[in-house]
Protein backbone atom coordinates (compact mmCIF):
# COMPACT_ATOMS: atom_id res chain seq x y z
CA UNK A 1 0.00 0.00 0.00
CA UNK A 2 2.88 2.40 0.68
CA UNK A 3 4.13 2.17 -2.89
CA UNK A 4 0.61 2.74 -4.20
CA UNK A 5 0.08 5.67 -1.92
CA UNK A 6 3.04 7.43 -3.48
CA UNK A 7 1.91 6.87 -7.06
CA UNK A 8 0.34 9.92 -8.74
CA UNK A 9 -3.40 10.14 -8.04
CA UNK A 10 -5.85 8.91 -10.70
CA UNK A 11 -8.28 11.69 -9.92
CA UNK A 12 -7.78 14.73 -7.82
CA UNK A 13 -10.55 17.09 -6.70
CA UNK A 14 -9.52 20.46 -5.30
CA UNK A 15 -11.99 22.74 -3.56
CA UNK A 16 -14.93 21.33 -5.52
CA UNK A 17 -18.31 22.95 -4.96
CA UNK A 18 -21.46 21.97 -6.83
CA UNK A 19 -24.58 24.08 -7.19
CA UNK A 20 -27.91 23.28 -8.83
CA UNK A 21 -29.96 26.37 -9.65
CA UNK A 22 -28.06 28.32 -7.04
CA UNK A 23 -28.55 25.70 -4.32
CA UNK A 24 -25.26 24.40 -3.05
CA UNK A 25 -25.17 20.65 -2.58
CA UNK A 26 -21.44 20.28 -2.12
CA UNK A 27 -18.96 22.69 -0.63
CA UNK A 28 -15.20 22.77 -0.90
CA UNK A 29 -14.41 19.08 -1.29
CA UNK A 30 -10.80 18.09 -1.72
CA UNK A 31 -9.82 14.48 -2.21
CA UNK A 32 -7.72 12.25 -4.39
CA UNK A 33 -7.97 8.64 -5.50
CA UNK A 34 -4.85 6.55 -5.80
CA UNK A 35 -4.33 3.46 -7.94
CA UNK A 36 -5.77 0.27 -6.53
CA UNK A 37 -7.64 1.60 -3.51
CA UNK A 38 -11.31 1.10 -2.70
CA UNK A 39 -12.87 4.32 -1.47
CA UNK A 40 -16.46 4.52 -0.32
CA UNK A 41 -18.53 7.68 -0.16
CA UNK A 42 -21.24 7.47 2.48
CA UNK A 43 -23.72 10.08 3.51
CA UNK A 44 -27.44 10.70 3.99
CA UNK A 45 -29.80 11.47 1.11
CA UNK A 46 -29.03 14.81 -0.46
CA UNK A 47 -25.51 14.88 0.95
CA UNK A 48 -23.99 15.28 -2.50
CA UNK A 49 -22.59 11.74 -2.88
CA UNK A 50 -23.91 11.21 -6.37
CA UNK A 51 -22.99 14.74 -7.44
CA UNK A 52 -19.44 14.20 -6.27
CA UNK A 53 -19.21 10.85 -8.05
CA UNK A 54 -20.53 12.42 -11.26
CA UNK A 55 -18.05 15.27 -10.99
CA UNK A 56 -15.15 12.87 -10.46
CA UNK A 57 -16.32 10.76 -13.41
CA UNK A 58 -16.50 13.84 -15.61
CA UNK A 59 -20.27 13.81 -16.06
CA UNK A 60 -20.81 17.03 -14.14
CA UNK A 61 -18.82 20.25 -14.19
CA UNK A 62 -18.26 21.63 -10.69
CA UNK A 63 -19.40 25.21 -10.13
CA UNK A 64 -16.16 25.95 -8.31
CA UNK A 65 -12.86 24.19 -7.82
CA UNK A 66 -11.41 21.70 -10.23
CA UNK A 67 -11.31 18.00 -10.92
CA UNK A 68 -8.12 16.75 -12.49
CA UNK A 69 -8.07 13.32 -14.05
CA UNK A 70 -4.76 11.75 -14.92
CA UNK A 71 -4.31 12.22 -18.67
CA UNK A 72 -5.56 9.16 -20.58
CA UNK A 73 -7.24 7.71 -17.50
CA UNK A 74 -9.49 4.79 -18.43
CA UNK A 75 -12.62 5.13 -16.38
CA UNK A 76 -15.50 2.70 -15.97
CA UNK A 77 -18.65 4.31 -14.67
CA UNK A 78 -21.75 2.60 -13.32
CA UNK A 79 -24.44 5.26 -12.91
CA UNK A 80 -27.12 4.95 -10.28
CA UNK A 81 -29.81 4.39 -12.90
CA UNK A 82 -30.24 4.62 -16.62
CA UNK A 83 -33.36 6.51 -17.59
CA UNK A 84 -34.29 3.79 -20.05
CA UNK A 85 -36.87 4.85 -22.55
CA UNK A 86 -38.88 1.83 -23.60
CA UNK A 87 -39.04 3.17 -27.14
CA UNK A 88 -35.30 2.58 -27.46
CA UNK A 89 -34.75 -1.08 -28.28
CA UNK A 90 -31.40 -2.11 -26.91
CA UNK A 91 -30.04 -5.58 -26.38
CA UNK A 92 -27.53 -6.21 -23.64
CA UNK A 93 -24.93 -7.12 -26.24
CA UNK A 94 -25.49 -3.92 -28.23
CA UNK A 95 -25.21 -1.92 -25.03
CA UNK A 96 -21.90 -3.58 -24.20
CA UNK A 97 -20.65 -2.85 -27.71
CA UNK A 98 -21.19 0.84 -26.95
CA UNK A 99 -18.29 0.56 -24.53
CA UNK A 100 -16.12 0.23 -27.63
CA UNK A 101 -15.56 -3.55 -27.59
CA UNK A 102 -15.93 -5.00 -31.09
CA UNK A 103 -15.37 -8.66 -30.22
CA UNK A 104 -18.57 -10.40 -29.22
CA UNK A 105 -16.70 -13.18 -27.39
CA UNK A 106 -15.00 -10.59 -25.17
CA UNK A 107 -18.37 -8.99 -24.45
CA UNK A 108 -19.80 -12.36 -23.47
CA UNK A 109 -16.81 -13.07 -21.27
CA UNK A 110 -17.38 -9.76 -19.45
CA UNK A 111 -21.00 -10.75 -18.78
CA UNK A 112 -19.83 -14.10 -17.51
CA UNK A 113 -17.28 -12.47 -15.23
CA UNK A 114 -19.91 -10.25 -13.63
CA UNK A 115 -22.19 -13.22 -13.08
CA UNK A 116 -24.68 -12.57 -15.87
CA UNK A 117 -23.75 -15.15 -18.52
CA UNK A 118 -25.91 -15.48 -21.61
CA UNK A 119 -27.81 -12.22 -21.19
CA UNK A 120 -26.49 -10.86 -24.50
CA UNK A 121 -29.63 -11.16 -26.63
CA UNK A 122 -32.00 -9.91 -23.91
CA UNK A 123 -33.49 -6.44 -23.96
CA UNK A 124 -32.12 -4.03 -21.34
CA UNK A 125 -35.65 -3.08 -20.34
CA UNK A 126 -36.51 -6.71 -19.46
CA UNK A 127 -33.69 -7.25 -16.98
CA UNK A 128 -34.17 -7.62 -13.26
CA UNK A 129 -32.44 -5.16 -10.92
CA UNK A 130 -29.53 -7.50 -10.26
CA UNK A 131 -29.06 -8.45 -13.91
CA UNK A 132 -29.13 -4.80 -14.85
CA UNK A 133 -26.44 -3.87 -12.32
CA UNK A 134 -24.27 -6.72 -13.53
CA UNK A 135 -24.73 -5.60 -17.11
CA UNK A 136 -23.73 -2.05 -16.21
CA UNK A 137 -20.69 -3.43 -14.42
CA UNK A 138 -19.77 -5.55 -17.45
CA UNK A 139 -20.03 -2.42 -19.59
CA UNK A 140 -17.67 -0.63 -17.23
CA UNK A 141 -15.23 -3.59 -17.26
CA UNK A 142 -15.06 -3.51 -21.04
CA UNK A 143 -13.51 -0.07 -20.73
CA UNK A 144 -10.55 -1.89 -19.07
CA UNK A 145 -10.76 0.64 -16.27
CA UNK A 146 -8.01 1.97 -14.07
CA UNK A 147 -10.78 3.53 -12.01
CA UNK A 148 -14.25 2.12 -11.46
CA UNK A 149 -16.88 4.60 -10.25
CA UNK A 150 -19.95 2.81 -8.87
CA UNK A 151 -22.92 4.90 -7.81
CA UNK A 152 -25.13 2.96 -5.39
CA UNK A 153 -24.58 -0.20 -7.45
CA UNK A 154 -26.74 -2.32 -5.18
CA UNK A 155 -29.93 -0.30 -5.54
CA UNK A 156 -32.71 -2.82 -5.98
CA UNK A 157 -30.70 -5.76 -4.67
CA UNK A 158 -31.56 -7.65 -1.51
CA UNK A 159 -29.03 -8.15 1.28
CA UNK A 160 -27.39 -11.36 -0.03
CA UNK A 161 -27.39 -9.93 -3.55
CA UNK A 162 -25.69 -6.77 -2.35
CA UNK A 163 -23.07 -8.71 -0.39
CA UNK A 164 -22.33 -10.88 -3.42
CA UNK A 165 -22.02 -7.76 -5.56
CA UNK A 166 -19.52 -6.17 -3.19
CA UNK A 167 -17.48 -9.37 -3.08
CA UNK A 168 -17.42 -9.32 -6.86
CA UNK A 169 -16.19 -5.72 -6.87
CA UNK A 170 -13.41 -6.57 -4.42
CA UNK A 171 -12.39 -9.55 -6.58
CA UNK A 172 -12.36 -7.42 -9.71
CA UNK A 173 -10.21 -4.84 -7.98
CA UNK A 174 -7.68 -7.56 -7.18
CA UNK A 175 -7.81 -8.94 -10.73
CA UNK A 176 -7.59 -5.67 -12.61
CA UNK A 177 -5.65 -3.67 -10.06
CA UNK A 178 -8.07 -0.82 -10.61
CA UNK A 179 -9.13 1.72 -8.04
CA UNK A 180 -12.79 1.72 -7.01
CA UNK A 181 -14.88 4.67 -5.93
CA UNK A 182 -18.19 3.51 -4.55
CA UNK A 183 -21.20 5.51 -3.44
CA UNK A 184 -23.33 3.66 -0.98
CA UNK A 185 -25.71 3.66 1.89
CA UNK A 186 -25.27 -0.02 2.78
CA UNK A 187 -22.86 1.08 5.44
CA UNK A 188 -21.98 -2.01 7.32
CA UNK A 189 -21.52 -4.19 4.26
CA UNK A 190 -19.56 -1.68 2.27
CA UNK A 191 -17.30 -0.35 4.92
CA UNK A 192 -15.58 -3.59 5.71
CA UNK A 193 -14.47 -3.91 2.06
CA UNK A 194 -13.12 -0.36 1.80
CA UNK A 195 -9.61 0.92 2.28
CA UNK A 196 -10.94 4.37 2.97
CA UNK A 197 -14.36 5.77 3.79
CA UNK A 198 -15.35 9.36 3.19
CA UNK A 199 -18.40 10.53 5.04
CA UNK A 200 -20.17 13.29 3.17
CA UNK A 201 -22.86 15.72 4.19
CA UNK A 202 -22.58 18.70 1.89
CA UNK A 203 -18.89 18.67 2.74
CA UNK A 204 -16.43 16.06 3.94
CA UNK A 205 -17.43 15.32 7.54
CA UNK A 206 -14.80 12.78 8.29
CA UNK A 207 -12.60 10.37 6.44
CA UNK A 208 -10.31 7.48 7.18
CA UNK A 209 -10.26 3.71 7.47
CA UNK A 210 -13.64 2.09 8.12
CA UNK A 211 -12.98 1.71 11.83
CA UNK A 212 -11.90 5.30 12.23
CA UNK A 213 -14.97 6.64 10.44
CA UNK A 214 -17.39 4.37 12.26
CA UNK A 215 -16.05 5.69 15.55
CA UNK A 216 -16.05 9.33 14.50
CA UNK A 217 -18.56 11.51 16.34
CA UNK A 218 -19.48 13.28 13.06
CA UNK A 219 -20.35 9.97 11.51
CA UNK A 220 -22.36 8.88 14.53
CA UNK A 221 -24.22 12.17 14.57
CA UNK A 222 -25.34 11.45 11.00
CA UNK A 223 -25.98 7.73 11.16
CA UNK A 224 -26.04 6.84 14.83
CA UNK A 225 -29.79 6.39 15.17
CA UNK A 226 -31.11 5.08 11.88
CA UNK A 227 -28.62 2.27 11.43
CA UNK A 228 -27.96 1.51 15.06
CA UNK A 229 -28.46 -2.21 14.71
CA UNK A 230 -26.37 -2.59 11.61
CA UNK A 231 -23.61 -0.47 13.04
CA UNK A 232 -23.54 -2.44 16.24
CA UNK A 233 -23.05 -5.56 14.17
CA UNK A 234 -20.28 -3.95 12.22
CA UNK A 235 -18.53 -2.58 15.28
CA UNK A 236 -18.77 -5.91 16.92
CA UNK A 237 -16.95 -7.63 14.05
CA UNK A 238 -14.22 -5.06 14.07
CA UNK A 239 -13.79 -5.01 17.80
CA UNK A 240 -12.45 -8.50 17.39
CA UNK A 241 -10.27 -7.74 14.42
CA UNK A 242 -8.73 -4.40 15.21
CA UNK A 243 -9.02 -3.47 18.85
CA UNK A 244 -5.55 -4.65 19.61
CA UNK A 245 -4.11 -2.80 16.66
CA UNK A 246 -2.21 0.04 18.32
CA UNK A 247 -2.39 2.33 15.26
CA UNK A 248 -6.15 2.51 15.40
CA UNK A 249 -6.38 3.13 19.08
CA UNK A 250 -3.99 5.95 18.61
CA UNK A 251 -5.82 7.55 15.70
CA UNK A 252 -9.09 8.25 17.35
CA UNK A 253 -8.50 11.16 19.67
CA UNK A 254 -6.44 13.08 17.10
CA UNK A 255 -8.49 12.79 13.98
CA UNK A 256 -11.80 14.13 15.15
CA UNK A 257 -13.12 17.31 16.65
CA UNK A 258 -15.79 17.73 19.29
CA UNK A 259 -19.07 15.88 18.87
CA UNK A 260 -21.71 17.55 16.74
CA UNK A 261 -19.43 19.54 14.50
CA UNK A 262 -20.34 17.52 11.45
CA UNK A 263 -24.06 17.71 11.99
CA UNK A 264 -24.47 21.11 10.36
CA UNK A 265 -27.13 21.83 7.73
CA UNK A 266 -26.89 19.45 4.78
Amino acid sequence: MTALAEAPPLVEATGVSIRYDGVEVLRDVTLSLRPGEIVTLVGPNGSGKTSLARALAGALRPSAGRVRRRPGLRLGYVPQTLALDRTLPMTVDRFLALAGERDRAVREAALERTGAPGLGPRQLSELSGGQFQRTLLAHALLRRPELLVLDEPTTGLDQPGASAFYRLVAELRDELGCAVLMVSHDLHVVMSASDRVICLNGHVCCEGTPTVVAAAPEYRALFGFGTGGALALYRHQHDHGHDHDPAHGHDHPHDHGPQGQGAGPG
Partner: protein
Amino acid sequence: MASALAAGPLGCFVVWRRMAYFGDATAHAAILGVAVALALEIPIFLGVLALAGLMSAAVALSAGRSYAADTLLGVAAHTALAAGLTAMAFLPGARLDLMGYLFGDILAVSRGDVWTILFGAAAALGLLAWRWTGLLASTLSPDLAAAEGRDPARERLILMLALAFLVAAALKVVGALLITALLVIPAAAARAVSSTPERMALAAAAIGAGAVLAGLAASWTWDAPAGPSVVLAASAALALANLAAVLRRALRG
Protein backbone atom coordinates in the same frame (compact mmCIF):
# COMPACT_ATOMS: atom_id res chain seq x y z
CA MET B 1 -38.85 9.59 -50.61
CA ALA B 2 -35.41 10.95 -49.78
CA SER B 3 -36.74 12.99 -46.91
CA ALA B 4 -38.68 10.01 -45.60
CA LEU B 5 -35.54 7.88 -45.69
CA ALA B 6 -33.71 10.48 -43.62
CA ALA B 7 -36.70 11.17 -41.40
CA GLY B 8 -36.90 7.53 -40.28
CA PRO B 9 -33.59 7.25 -38.42
CA LEU B 10 -33.77 10.86 -37.24
CA GLY B 11 -37.28 10.24 -36.00
CA CYS B 12 -35.94 7.37 -33.89
CA PHE B 13 -33.86 9.85 -31.92
CA VAL B 14 -36.81 12.20 -31.66
CA VAL B 15 -38.82 9.36 -30.13
CA TRP B 16 -36.00 8.02 -27.93
CA ARG B 17 -35.25 11.43 -26.54
CA ARG B 18 -38.91 12.38 -26.19
CA MET B 19 -38.42 15.31 -28.47
CA ALA B 20 -41.71 15.18 -30.39
CA TYR B 21 -42.62 18.67 -29.22
CA PHE B 22 -39.20 19.77 -30.20
CA GLY B 23 -39.82 18.56 -33.74
CA ASP B 24 -42.98 20.67 -33.77
CA ALA B 25 -41.14 23.74 -32.56
CA THR B 26 -38.47 23.37 -35.23
CA ALA B 27 -41.06 22.83 -37.94
CA HIS B 28 -43.13 25.82 -36.88
CA ALA B 29 -40.04 27.98 -36.80
CA ALA B 30 -39.62 26.95 -40.42
CA ILE B 31 -42.72 28.98 -41.37
CA LEU B 32 -41.10 32.04 -39.86
CA GLY B 33 -38.00 31.05 -41.79
CA VAL B 34 -39.96 31.08 -45.05
CA ALA B 35 -41.28 34.57 -44.27
CA VAL B 36 -37.81 35.84 -43.40
CA ALA B 37 -36.36 34.32 -46.56
CA LEU B 38 -39.05 35.91 -48.73
CA ALA B 39 -38.57 39.29 -47.04
CA LEU B 40 -34.80 39.22 -47.41
CA GLU B 41 -34.98 37.62 -50.83
CA ILE B 42 -32.60 34.82 -49.89
CA PRO B 43 -33.18 31.16 -50.81
CA ILE B 44 -36.01 29.70 -48.75
CA PHE B 45 -33.91 26.69 -47.82
CA LEU B 46 -31.38 28.96 -46.12
CA GLY B 47 -34.03 30.99 -44.31
CA VAL B 48 -35.70 27.85 -43.00
CA LEU B 49 -32.41 26.26 -42.03
CA ALA B 50 -31.34 29.39 -40.16
CA LEU B 51 -34.61 29.83 -38.26
CA ALA B 52 -34.98 26.12 -37.48
CA GLY B 53 -31.39 26.11 -36.28
CA LEU B 54 -31.95 29.22 -34.16
CA MET B 55 -35.02 27.65 -32.64
CA SER B 56 -33.06 24.50 -31.80
CA ALA B 57 -30.31 26.50 -30.16
CA ALA B 58 -32.74 28.70 -28.22
CA VAL B 59 -34.67 25.74 -26.89
CA ALA B 60 -31.54 23.75 -26.10
CA LEU B 61 -30.09 26.66 -24.14
CA SER B 62 -33.22 27.52 -22.20
CA ALA B 63 -34.17 23.95 -21.34
CA GLY B 64 -34.37 23.14 -17.66
CA ARG B 65 -34.87 26.72 -16.50
CA SER B 66 -38.01 28.00 -14.86
CA TYR B 67 -40.55 26.32 -17.18
CA ALA B 68 -41.03 22.65 -17.93
CA ALA B 69 -39.70 21.61 -21.31
CA ASP B 70 -43.10 20.98 -22.89
CA THR B 71 -44.44 24.36 -21.74
CA LEU B 72 -41.39 26.09 -23.13
CA LEU B 73 -41.66 24.26 -26.44
CA GLY B 74 -45.37 24.98 -26.66
CA VAL B 75 -44.68 28.67 -26.21
CA ALA B 76 -41.75 28.68 -28.64
CA ALA B 77 -43.48 26.61 -31.32
CA HIS B 78 -46.67 28.61 -31.47
CA THR B 79 -44.97 31.97 -31.09
CA ALA B 80 -42.82 31.11 -34.08
CA LEU B 81 -45.82 29.86 -36.05
CA ALA B 82 -47.88 32.94 -35.24
CA ALA B 83 -44.96 35.25 -36.06
CA GLY B 84 -44.45 33.42 -39.34
CA LEU B 85 -48.13 33.63 -40.26
CA THR B 86 -48.24 37.34 -39.39
CA ALA B 87 -45.10 38.06 -41.36
CA MET B 88 -46.46 36.12 -44.35
CA ALA B 89 -49.64 38.21 -44.28
CA PHE B 90 -47.63 41.39 -44.77
CA LEU B 91 -45.59 40.02 -47.65
CA PRO B 92 -47.18 40.56 -51.07
CA GLY B 93 -47.81 37.32 -52.88
CA ALA B 94 -46.70 35.11 -50.01
CA ARG B 95 -50.24 34.43 -48.92
CA LEU B 96 -50.79 32.29 -51.98
CA ASP B 97 -47.99 29.93 -50.94
CA LEU B 98 -48.98 29.77 -47.30
CA MET B 99 -51.12 26.65 -47.58
CA GLY B 100 -48.30 24.96 -49.45
CA TYR B 101 -45.84 25.62 -46.66
CA LEU B 102 -48.27 24.63 -43.91
CA PHE B 103 -49.52 21.42 -45.47
CA GLY B 104 -47.03 20.73 -48.22
CA ASP B 105 -47.71 20.72 -51.91
CA ILE B 106 -45.99 17.98 -53.78
CA LEU B 107 -47.24 19.23 -57.13
CA ALA B 108 -45.49 22.56 -56.57
CA VAL B 109 -42.11 20.88 -56.18
CA SER B 110 -39.75 22.03 -58.91
CA ARG B 111 -36.58 20.43 -60.22
CA GLY B 112 -34.54 22.83 -58.07
CA ASP B 113 -36.57 21.83 -55.03
CA VAL B 114 -35.73 18.21 -55.66
CA TRP B 115 -32.03 18.97 -55.41
CA THR B 116 -32.67 21.00 -52.25
CA ILE B 117 -34.54 18.08 -50.72
CA LEU B 118 -31.86 15.61 -51.69
CA PHE B 119 -29.17 17.85 -50.24
CA GLY B 120 -31.02 18.49 -46.99
CA ALA B 121 -31.87 14.83 -46.50
CA ALA B 122 -28.33 13.74 -47.32
CA ALA B 123 -26.93 16.29 -44.87
CA ALA B 124 -29.26 15.08 -42.10
CA LEU B 125 -28.45 11.42 -42.79
CA GLY B 126 -24.74 12.11 -43.09
CA LEU B 127 -24.65 13.85 -39.72
CA LEU B 128 -26.51 10.94 -38.14
CA ALA B 129 -24.27 8.28 -39.68
CA TRP B 130 -21.14 10.19 -38.71
CA ARG B 131 -22.10 10.60 -35.06
CA TRP B 132 -24.22 7.46 -34.67
CA THR B 133 -22.39 5.77 -31.79
CA GLY B 134 -21.88 9.00 -29.89
CA LEU B 135 -25.49 10.01 -30.36
CA LEU B 136 -26.71 6.62 -29.24
CA ALA B 137 -24.50 6.59 -26.15
CA SER B 138 -25.56 10.09 -25.13
CA THR B 139 -29.20 9.28 -25.70
CA LEU B 140 -28.97 6.21 -23.50
CA SER B 141 -27.20 8.01 -20.66
CA PRO B 142 -25.55 11.43 -20.92
CA ASP B 143 -23.65 10.71 -17.70
CA LEU B 144 -22.24 7.45 -18.93
CA ALA B 145 -21.31 8.99 -22.28
CA ALA B 146 -19.55 11.89 -20.56
CA ALA B 147 -17.67 9.54 -18.23
CA GLU B 148 -16.46 7.66 -21.30
CA GLY B 149 -15.05 10.77 -22.84
CA ARG B 150 -17.90 11.78 -25.12
CA ASP B 151 -19.55 15.18 -25.18
CA PRO B 152 -23.35 14.80 -24.84
CA ALA B 153 -23.95 18.53 -25.35
CA ARG B 154 -22.15 18.45 -28.68
CA GLU B 155 -23.99 15.32 -29.79
CA ARG B 156 -27.26 17.02 -28.91
CA LEU B 157 -26.30 20.03 -30.98
CA ILE B 158 -25.45 17.83 -33.94
CA LEU B 159 -28.79 16.06 -33.66
CA MET B 160 -30.58 19.42 -33.67
CA LEU B 161 -28.61 20.54 -36.70
CA ALA B 162 -29.62 17.36 -38.50
CA LEU B 163 -33.21 18.05 -37.55
CA ALA B 164 -32.98 21.59 -38.92
CA PHE B 165 -31.63 20.23 -42.22
CA LEU B 166 -34.43 17.71 -42.45
CA VAL B 167 -37.14 20.26 -41.70
CA ALA B 168 -35.73 22.58 -44.34
CA ALA B 169 -35.68 19.73 -46.81
CA ALA B 170 -39.11 18.30 -46.12
CA LEU B 171 -41.04 21.54 -45.66
CA LYS B 172 -42.06 21.90 -49.29
CA VAL B 173 -43.35 18.33 -49.54
CA VAL B 174 -45.07 17.54 -46.25
CA GLY B 175 -45.59 21.02 -44.83
CA ALA B 176 -44.71 22.44 -41.43
CA LEU B 177 -47.71 21.01 -39.62
CA LEU B 178 -47.03 17.42 -40.63
CA ILE B 179 -43.23 17.14 -40.53
CA THR B 180 -43.28 15.88 -36.95
CA ALA B 181 -45.63 13.13 -38.07
CA LEU B 182 -43.11 11.98 -40.65
CA LEU B 183 -40.48 11.88 -37.90
CA VAL B 184 -42.43 10.26 -35.12
CA ILE B 185 -44.88 7.84 -36.72
CA PRO B 186 -42.49 5.66 -38.76
CA ALA B 187 -40.14 5.49 -35.78
CA ALA B 188 -42.95 4.45 -33.47
CA ALA B 189 -44.07 1.83 -35.97
CA ALA B 190 -40.53 0.52 -36.29
CA ARG B 191 -40.24 0.14 -32.52
CA ALA B 192 -42.81 -2.63 -32.52
CA VAL B 193 -40.71 -4.79 -34.83
CA SER B 194 -37.13 -3.98 -33.76
CA SER B 195 -34.75 -5.35 -31.16
CA THR B 196 -31.74 -3.07 -31.69
CA PRO B 197 -31.45 0.66 -32.37
CA GLU B 198 -29.89 0.05 -35.78
CA ARG B 199 -32.73 -2.19 -36.89
CA MET B 200 -35.24 0.33 -35.63
CA ALA B 201 -33.56 3.09 -37.65
CA LEU B 202 -33.58 1.00 -40.82
CA ALA B 203 -37.15 -0.13 -40.27
CA ALA B 204 -38.24 3.46 -39.66
CA ALA B 205 -36.59 4.55 -42.90
CA ALA B 206 -38.28 1.73 -44.79
CA ILE B 207 -41.68 2.39 -43.23
CA GLY B 208 -41.34 6.11 -43.91
CA ALA B 209 -40.44 5.51 -47.54
CA GLY B 210 -43.27 3.01 -47.91
CA ALA B 211 -45.71 5.49 -46.39
CA VAL B 212 -44.62 8.14 -48.88
CA LEU B 213 -45.17 5.79 -51.79
CA ALA B 214 -48.54 4.61 -50.49
CA GLY B 215 -49.64 8.15 -49.65
CA LEU B 216 -48.68 9.46 -53.07
CA ALA B 217 -50.42 6.55 -54.76
CA ALA B 218 -53.57 7.27 -52.75
CA SER B 219 -53.27 10.92 -53.62
CA TRP B 220 -52.93 10.05 -57.31
CA THR B 221 -55.77 7.58 -57.32
CA TRP B 222 -58.37 9.38 -55.23
CA ASP B 223 -57.12 12.93 -55.63
CA ALA B 224 -56.55 13.11 -51.86
CA PRO B 225 -54.16 15.77 -50.51
CA ALA B 226 -50.64 14.31 -50.69
CA GLY B 227 -49.11 15.28 -47.33
CA PRO B 228 -52.00 14.11 -45.15
CA SER B 229 -52.26 10.91 -47.20
CA VAL B 230 -48.62 10.12 -46.48
CA VAL B 231 -49.17 10.67 -42.76
CA LEU B 232 -52.26 8.47 -42.78
CA ALA B 233 -50.34 5.73 -44.56
CA ALA B 234 -47.65 5.93 -41.87
CA SER B 235 -50.31 5.71 -39.14
CA ALA B 236 -51.72 2.63 -40.83
CA ALA B 237 -48.23 1.12 -40.85
CA LEU B 238 -47.95 1.86 -37.12
CA ALA B 239 -51.23 0.07 -36.44
CA LEU B 240 -50.19 -2.90 -38.57
CA ALA B 241 -46.76 -3.17 -36.95
CA ASN B 242 -48.27 -3.23 -33.49
CA LEU B 243 -50.88 -5.72 -34.55
CA ALA B 244 -48.13 -7.95 -35.98
CA ALA B 245 -46.14 -7.68 -32.75
CA VAL B 246 -49.16 -8.59 -30.65
CA LEU B 247 -49.97 -11.55 -32.88
CA ARG B 248 -46.39 -12.77 -32.80
CA ARG B 249 -46.31 -12.61 -29.03
CA ALA B 250 -49.63 -14.44 -28.84
CA LEU B 251 -48.35 -17.17 -31.16
CA ARG B 252 -45.17 -17.57 -29.16
CA GLY B 253 -47.39 -18.04 -26.12
